[in-house]
């Protein structure tokens, strides 16, 4: 029936000039770039496995050198897979947080979420010292979830909903959590341990000690399944409700995924700054905000970015390492600064 109307409407033509500049990029090109990213990820993973103090070559694997194979399975592979999962997890969490708050500058770093995970972990250590890693991780998760809820409440009730003001509040919120953690750390004489969590480091990732990071996988899967709903959330409460979305539920589901991912990563490697801010922003700047469409690129790019930073950090002062938190801080910070300056 509308077809008939279409004819009528075409008669009352309104020729608007269409500039070519705003047209979104072509589908074929995008597929090529996705393939390129996958190839880069595989390449970086291979390099990551072979870089290190002990010299391992492809030849050793082929000849089945037992010592070197053990090194790979106990240290190199866990490290590489943790880097990949952490890269994916941090970037996807950042994206979700930006949707939930409708603010491009909100991320695990600028909303206090990482600080919450750290404090949660510390409190877990203090309150339930005899519990296993899973329990402590669970404690950190609950704490992160609660802190994220609190942050959203604060954001909801502040009057100035300025783009920059919201992450500023988040940074302050994080600083408060951080100082509480430092207070406990000083009292218990474990400042150094706590500082180690503050700055991510993958050199301690070993088989048997890193498996918690797999908990970030279900969270990423949820994000993919609910991608359209998260896009809708980003359009605002009124739009979501008009389209019949269960707004509260999807909000909480997003916070759940983010909290799960972050506590898993902080527990395994520590806090990785800026990744959740820079990666989603860079990718959506090019490909738009339709999450279903950009999620693979964001995940791939995040993993490649973290792997690359790690490889550089391992090579610059070889045979020593620059902690990856520092590397990402430098590279990510620089990119973020450029991004801010270019944003009109």
């Amino acid at each position: 029936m509308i077809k008939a109307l279409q004819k009528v409407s075409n008669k009352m033509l309104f020729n608007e000039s269409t500039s070519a500049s705003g047209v979104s990029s072509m589908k074929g090109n995008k597929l090529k770039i996705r393939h390129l990213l996958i190839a880069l990820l595989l390449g970086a993973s291979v390099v990551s496995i072979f870089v290190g103090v002990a010299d391992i070559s492809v030849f050793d694997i082929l000849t089945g050198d037992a010592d070197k194979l053990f090194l790979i399975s106990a240290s190199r592979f866990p490290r590489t897979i943790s880097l990949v999962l952490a890269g994916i997890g941090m970037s996807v969490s950042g994206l979700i947080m930006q949707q939930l708050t409708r603010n491009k500058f909100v991320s695990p770093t600028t909303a206090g979420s990482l600080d919450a995970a750290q404090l949660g972990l510390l409190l877990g250590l203090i309150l339930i010292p005899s519990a296993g890693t899973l329990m402590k991780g669970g404690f950190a998760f609950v704490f992160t979830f609660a802190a994220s809820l609190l942050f959203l409440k604060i954001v909801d009730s502040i009057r100035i909903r300025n783009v920059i003001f919201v992450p500023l509040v988040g940074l302050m919120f994080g600083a408060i959590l951080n100082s509480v953690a430092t207070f406990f750390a000083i009292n218990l004489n474990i400042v150094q341990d706590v500082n180690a969590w503050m700055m991510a480091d993958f050199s301690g990732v070993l088989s048997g000690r890193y498996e918690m990071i797999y908990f970030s996988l279900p969270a990423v899967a949820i994000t993919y399944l609910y991608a359209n709903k998260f896009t809708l959330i980003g359009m605002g409460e009124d739009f979501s409700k008009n389209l019949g979305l269960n707004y509260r539920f999807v909000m909480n589901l997003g916070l759940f995924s983010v909290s799960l991912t972050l506590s898993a990563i902080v527990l395994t490697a520590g806090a990785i700054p800026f990744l959740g801010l820079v990666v989603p922003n860079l990718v959506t700047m090019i490909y738009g905000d339709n999450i279903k469409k950009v999620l693979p690129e964001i995940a791939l790019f995040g993993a490649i970015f973290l792997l690359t930073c790690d490889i550089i950090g391992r090579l610059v002062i070889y045979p020593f390492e620059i902690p990856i938190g520092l590397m990402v801080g430098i590279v990510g910070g620089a990119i973020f600064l450029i991004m801010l300056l270019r944003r009109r």
Partner: protein
Amino acid sequence: MIEIKNISKHYGDHVVLNDISLRFPKGKITSLIGSNGTGKSTLLSIMSRLLVQDNGEVFVNEKKNTDYKSAVLSQHLSILKQFNNIELKLTVKELVSFGRFPYSQGRLSEEDHEKIEETLGFLDLIELQDMYLEALSGGQRQRAYLAMVVAQDTEYILLDEPLNNLDMRHSVQIMKILRKLTEVLGKTIIVVLHDINFASHYSDYIAALKNGRVKYFGKANEIINEDILKDLFGISFCISQSNGKKLCNYFNHFN
């Protein structure tokens, strides 16, 4: 049929809506008019469950709107609010596709794709479909938002000042689209309008709000009346006839 019964809403001591009841004629355009702050937008928000009323009920097809599942109600009733600030970088087609969300939850069926294409054609957006919203002019963007609501394909469409920020040509264009939606597709449209002449020319019925109540309700031609308008807006109007429609001149504030 959409009907409101004894709706009240207040913010603190300020009463916005005071015991309002009204039945909106089916398959017609009803305009809501009244001065600023008379509760027109509040009423639309309550009717579309975006805002919760203090008192009273809203019936959609003889069923309370709170008795519907939200996802089901969004197949019957849609709303486009006055200020739409989507800051996401989405293309026109992506936005319009989200209008099908109540039916597909994001997994578009063959029928959804057809509806999206039809809507894009209906609102003359074919050429703009791959443009990002941020690259559009205000009028084009408004049309894209409207397209999303049209793609939602609901029996009842509520629009809060859809002509906001549009120039004359685009205003006329939007109003003509609304007319077609009612005349050809039988939609019931309730629209808040500030331009009294658009209300006079394009609506079948007019509901006029004053002091939190529906002070006048009737056919457009009956409400467009010098005494009524003076009572509503507190200024004088000079009404003339043009092509069978009433034309209001209030620019000189005749005394």
